[in-house]
């Protein structure tokens, strides 16, 4: 949370000539009161041509949620096949397509767009800006995304099926030994990358140029800080991913040998390039989550965030360290022992700033005045379960034991704890926190409680036993397994189905909220909430901060 809590009321009645919305200048509404001023375009063109950060935020969030359900449906296929040993439902080749596309959709289609949606909605409102700095590019960076995922999903219906080489697309499985759909996979990843880079540029330009007077760097809310650092990570590594997929494309279709030893290349070089992107990528998916939790915990503790400055520095050091740990994904590839040691020590080091964050949240709660509304419940679940994922991450950093954990379900358990109960839970916490501000109505809290408790129980039944089967020796990415893993896999699958169904409660809640059902809320919504976004009315008007507020 920022220290930017004292605000001189924004002068909302001032004339605002030249406020452009979809090419329409609101000249003739100059003297209307605020409600009537919100000239919101109607119909599909509102969404197609919108340059409004709130509309684009909504588009991103719904798109992410739909992709979450699509990727989740693929996870259901995976878990249904793994319910029992033996092949029952799908063929191994299709199973591999499911694991691959599930991963790609959840990473690039669900988690990243959801965070971009939250950035769009919140960053301008948190720093007192009227909109994102580059609104037309903002429209474009969203609207190329559905195309990218249509291409990716359509590849599943090609002869030979979609990509089946894992979301990490290791060469030469993705080059010489892959199907023709690889071309579609490469094209769609390029488009996703372009979208992410444009989104990141927009965030950086907005934060650098459009902060309200008095909103100094060290007064910025932590969500803004974490997203700023995330945006720099995105710009640094998305081009590396683009390079990797392009080399895969030319190796497969144009006769190059980047990753083929027969032509002087090296398949392990692919992994170095991929994980140079891939490791910062995992922080891209968790730093905004840290920001969200740092907004929510102080509100419901009714106490200022402990160690604001150390939170900022910890985030920055995590981001910097993320560039020098990539090869801990590759300990079994046969690196020299001194390289293994370097990457082991560097990886262990990351747990220090991450620990600082967790300690700061706990210290914020210590001697606060705690209440447990929905956002806080998700935030607490995040802290506990993300920490479990972080501790298993520390175990994975230890190279000699990583040889045993690597490519088993222990790793699957680890990254689902940090990504599902980490990133996804933080997104849900954010939605439950800011949704009343967006719609002006309190959502259905009974449904929210059902959603929370069903999700919390089922997600642990789903992912916790994966630690056990992984340690007992079950490799990941297999459609069929030895009999000693059968009991746990049954439970894991049942937990998976329950977690999937629980998200339908969330869908029902969101549909009700979007129909504007529920009790009206005040501008502040939560009695401990502080920050510029809580100064504007609920629901947030279509245009906010046309005249910048002054932050003392």
């Amino acid at each position, binding site marked *: 949370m920022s220290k930017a809590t004292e605000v001189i009321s924004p002068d909302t009645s001032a004339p605002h000539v030249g406020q452009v919305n979809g090419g329409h200048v609101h000249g003739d509404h100059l003297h209307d009161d605020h409600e009537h001023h919100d000239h919101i375009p109607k119909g599909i063109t509102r969404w197609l041509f919108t340059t409004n950060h709130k509309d684009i935020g909504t588009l991103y969030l719904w798109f992410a949620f739909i992709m979450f359900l699509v990727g989740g449906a693929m996870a259901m296929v995976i878990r249904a096949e793994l319910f029992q040993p033996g092949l029952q439902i799908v063929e191994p080749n299709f199973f591999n397509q499911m694991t691959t596309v599930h991963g790609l959709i959840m990473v690039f289609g669900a988690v990243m767009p959801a965070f971009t949606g939250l950035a769009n909605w919140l960053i301008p409102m948190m720093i007192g800006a009227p909109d994102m700095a580059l609104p037309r590019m903002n429209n474009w960076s969203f609207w190329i995304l559905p195309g990218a995922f249509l291409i990716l999903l359509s590849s599943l219906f090609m002869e030979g099926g979609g990509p089946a080489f894992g979301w990490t697309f290791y060469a030469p499985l993705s080059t010489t030994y892959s199907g023709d759909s690889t071309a579609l996979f490469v094209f769609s990843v390029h488009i996703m990358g372009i979208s992410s880079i444009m989104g990141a540029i927009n965030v950086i330009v907005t934060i650098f140029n459009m902060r309200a007077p008095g909103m100094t760097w060290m007064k910025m809310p932590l969500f803004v800080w974490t997203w700023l650092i995330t945006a720099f990570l995105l710009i640094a590594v998305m081009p590396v991913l683009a390079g990797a997929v392009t080399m895969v494309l030319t190796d497969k279709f144009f006769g190059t040998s980047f990753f*083929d030893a027969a032509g002087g290349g090296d398949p392990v070089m692919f992994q170095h390039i991929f994980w140079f992107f891939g490791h910062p990528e995992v922080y891209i998916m968790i730093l905004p989550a840290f920001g969200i939790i740092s907004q929510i915990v102080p509100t419901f503790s009714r106490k200022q965030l402990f160690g604001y400055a150390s939170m900022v520095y910890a985030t920055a050091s995590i981001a910097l360290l993320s560039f020098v740990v990539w090869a801990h994904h590759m300990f079994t590839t046969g690196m020299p022992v001194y390289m293994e040691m370097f990457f082991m020590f560097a990886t262990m080091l990351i747990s220090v700033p991450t620990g600082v964050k967790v300690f700061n949240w706990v210290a914020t709660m210590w001697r606060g005045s705690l209440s447990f509304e929905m956002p806080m419940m998700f935030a*607490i679940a995040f802290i506990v379960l993300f920490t479990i994922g972080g501790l298993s991450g520390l175990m994975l950093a230890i190279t000699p034991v990583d040889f045993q954990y690597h490519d088993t379900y222990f790793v699957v358990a680890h990254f689902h704890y940090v990504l599902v109960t980490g990133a996804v839970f933080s997104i849900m916490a954010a939605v439950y926190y800011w949704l009343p501000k967006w719609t002006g109505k309190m959502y259905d809290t009974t449904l929210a409680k059902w959603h929370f408790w069903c999700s919390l129980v089922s997600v642990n039944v789903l992912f916790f036993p994966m630690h056990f089967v992984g340690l007992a020796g079950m490799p990941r990415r297999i459609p*069929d397994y030895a009999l000693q893993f059968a009991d746990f896999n049954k439970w894991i699958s049942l937990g998976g189905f329950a977690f999937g169904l629980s998200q339908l409660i969330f869908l029902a809640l969101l549909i009700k909220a979007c129909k504007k059902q529920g009790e009206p809320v005040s501008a502040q919504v939560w009695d401990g909430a502080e920050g510029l976004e809580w100064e504007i009315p609920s629901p947030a008007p279509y245009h906010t901060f046309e005249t910048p507020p002054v932050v003392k």
Partner: protein
Amino acid sequence: MKQLTTVFAKWCSSIPFLLMSPLLFAQEASEEASSLNLRRGATDISGQVYDLHMLMFFICVGIAFVVFGVMFASMYLHRKSRGAKPANFHENVKVEIAWTVIPFLILIFMAVPAANTLIAMEDTSEPDMTVLVTGSQWKWHYKYMDSDVEFYSLLATQREQIENKFQKTDNYLLEVDRPLVIPTGKKVRFLITSDDVIHSWWVPDFAVKKDANPGFINESWAKVNEPGIYRGQCAELCGKDHGYMPVVVIAKEPAEFDKWMGEQEEIVRKAKEEEQRLLSMNMSMDELMKVGERVYNTTCAACHMPNGEGLPGVFPALKGSKMALEDQQGHIDIVLHGKSGTAMQAFSKMLSLKEIAAVVTYERNAWGNNTGDMVQAKDVNAVANGN
């Protein structure tokens, strides 16, 4: 709300106990393969790795207890419904330095034994014997570097068990036709490589997991203390049948190992003689088809499918294909040498002349391909020698 909080607090406080559970089971099940935890394994190194794992696990559980303990205490003590008033502090340099420095010291405490074990694991010098391990889609090949003995090791589980037609037996998916045999008490070095995509050779009981990279050779080693059968699996996604390429290693006492090795060398010598004898003989159509069907189903059916129709867009069909119907020379050639740039492997190393002759005959006469062609070992030999 108050009720919810208490339930939540109760539930969450059980997490550390859940974390402990592998440990409780580990003690009673240390001899048998645990279904909850790593195994201590059969080498000194795997024992060290296990100890390191348990040390890390305890430290993590300890950290979790402290952090969650403080958090749940404040959730209970400082909740609004109990009338808690918020304090005003929001920084404390001493505390912040302490919780940066203490974790750092804990890390150093972890790093020292980890580094020592790692150095020991990577020391492949002065082995007593060396085995070349080569992965290919979806089988392992073992070659003893000091002798002529080499063989492929394929999944031995019946197709019918995988398709749920037969009862699954104890070592379902963890059994092979020819396991690797090594002596106990000797430092055995493994050279690990691949013929096609990346595989990973993993025997949990040896704490050995090393990627098999095409075009490069990795090294690892094990000195097995106890005779026994040790099972593992491929650990790197390597395509369609990644789940179906197990590793089985039998460790025998040195004397027994030497006896086994002598027998194998004798078998290799006899097979070579047999091969020479077959060159001057013709096999009947029935015999060719019978041997061919067996070879096809163990070697070719994974990609080209038992019905010869392949997987459209991934693996080509043989049924009705131009090569299987017309180009006999090309057909023998592709089975012998593979086709570069595709998943089609060279089988000259894996199959005998007789087996290649039989499988080519089978492919040219099965599934309605009825060409009537018969291919004999000497025809294959002619193509192999470039005549």
